């Protein structure tokens, strides 16, 4: 019935030795001709596609305070707060799972997904965005040394993945 598939064992020891030499040769080939596919992140960054589910931002003047976003949020990240008699959503990025339900459910498109995903916070209080902070543009990350090069990944037949400058 459920037998383990037996592979035919190579009986010829010379063949085994040749296989070892072949493996070492392949390693040496990769060593003398490096094909690195690492993205050097702080200096280079991938230019993200439109519709990327990054950090969410609020357009405060569009929002009608219908509380649908807080209702649908599966992680309880969205909470409604009252400011000047009007309800606005606030978001806690410590809980947010970036599912994008709030953006989809918004009847007036007051929530947008930005293409920023590399944000860092120094304490937990900073993770909670009140409506006034929630309705501001995100700062682009500060370049590590010099300028951040925007690149995009392209499939190359010989090298696998290569990164070409975008725009």
């Amino acid at each position: 019935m459920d037998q383990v598939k037996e592979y035919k064992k190579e009986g010829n020891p010379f063949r085994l030795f040749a296989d070892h030499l072949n493996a070492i040769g392949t390693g040496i080939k990769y060593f003398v001709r490096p094909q690195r596919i690492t993205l050097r992140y702080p200096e280079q960054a991938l230019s993200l596609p439109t519709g990327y589910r990054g950090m969410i931002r609020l357009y405060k003047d569009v929002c009608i305070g219908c509380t649908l976003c807080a209702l649908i949020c599966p992680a309880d990240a969205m909470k409604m707060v009252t400011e000047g008699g009007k309800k606005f959503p606030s978001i806690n990025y410590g809980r947010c799972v970036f599912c994008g339900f709030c953006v989809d459910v918004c009847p007036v498109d007051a929530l947008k997904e930005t293409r920023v995903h590399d944000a860092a916070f120094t304490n937990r209080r900073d993770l909670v965005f009140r409506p006034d902070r929630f309705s501001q543009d995100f700062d682009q990350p500060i370049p590590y040394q010099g300028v951040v090069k925007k690149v995009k990944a392209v499939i190359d037949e010989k090298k696998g993945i290569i990164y070409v400058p975008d725009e």
Partner: protein
Amino acid sequence: MDGVLYALKYYFFYPSFFGVIIFPGLIFTSIILLLTIWFERKVAAIVQMRVGPLYVSKRTGGALQLVADAIRLVFSEIIIPAGVNPTLFAMAPAIVMIFTFLPMALIPFSAIPQSGSVLSPYFHIFYDYNIGKGLLVGYFVPYNMILILGLSAIVPISILLQAWATNNRFALVGAVREALLSVSYDVLLVMSLAAIAIEYHTLDIAKVTESGIPGIIANPLAAIVFFVGMIMATGRFPFEIVEAESEVVVGPSTEYSGFLFVLAMAGSYIATFALSFVFSDVFLGGWLPFNGLPGALWNSIKAIIVLWFTVFLRSVYGRYRIDQALRGSWKYILPVAFASLVLGFVVGWLWIR
């Protein structure tokens, strides 16, 4: 004043001090150790299409990463677990280190000509009557092949002691693996060197080197067997079974931290370097065609190439299971070792006088 300078120079270049402590001994070995670990990480990264250590001094490709790691390890706290004998616990890695390094005091690094070299004053003190020259060696023994093998055979016992002293289950599993493996690799090392000894009619490594015929030409089978035994003895891939990180943490040195961990981990690299010197002397022609200090440098370059090739294997191979390694060594490599013995008999009888 000149007398003092002369005396200083005399004692500085005295082979027992210079060869063992400075070059190519302890200090040189420590530098090579750092470079080797950097090279190991870098070459594995390159073969696996990564970059490897880079951000500590970008200009040199992250070469200072290892210096940073070494400083961090040396200054981190040494934690001694409750329920161990602290003396044995602290002593065990030092014993491993000592017995991996001791063969370096017996391996001939270079020959000393009667005149013309900075080492020539020691020609008569380190005179090797087998080859009619002096030797750059810590302590000259005419039967150094046996003594080197004997000293490196103590290492597994000290690893067992280390594992037993740490009182850790992963360490014990690693030690049992070491005990199982040591039976097979010691046989390979002894048989390949026995083939060479029969072939060259000597137990003196210097005479093998000075015969002018590299062992890899005279007996390639023994070279293969010795190389496999070497990577098995020192836990390089694909035989990194004792310290298998994904199975038994780091094997016998699981409980160690700080400087004791450095000692425990450096042991296997130093053992590889010492055996690389033996490989270079016996199979690759050692210091020939130079002698004196350039000969030692040339010998070291060969040994470093062998050492770096063994660490390069990490990027090629996976890890064998213990039964695969034992089957490989007893079923495939041991017959090759017997064949190398026969080849040694025949070639030693027909060609090498």
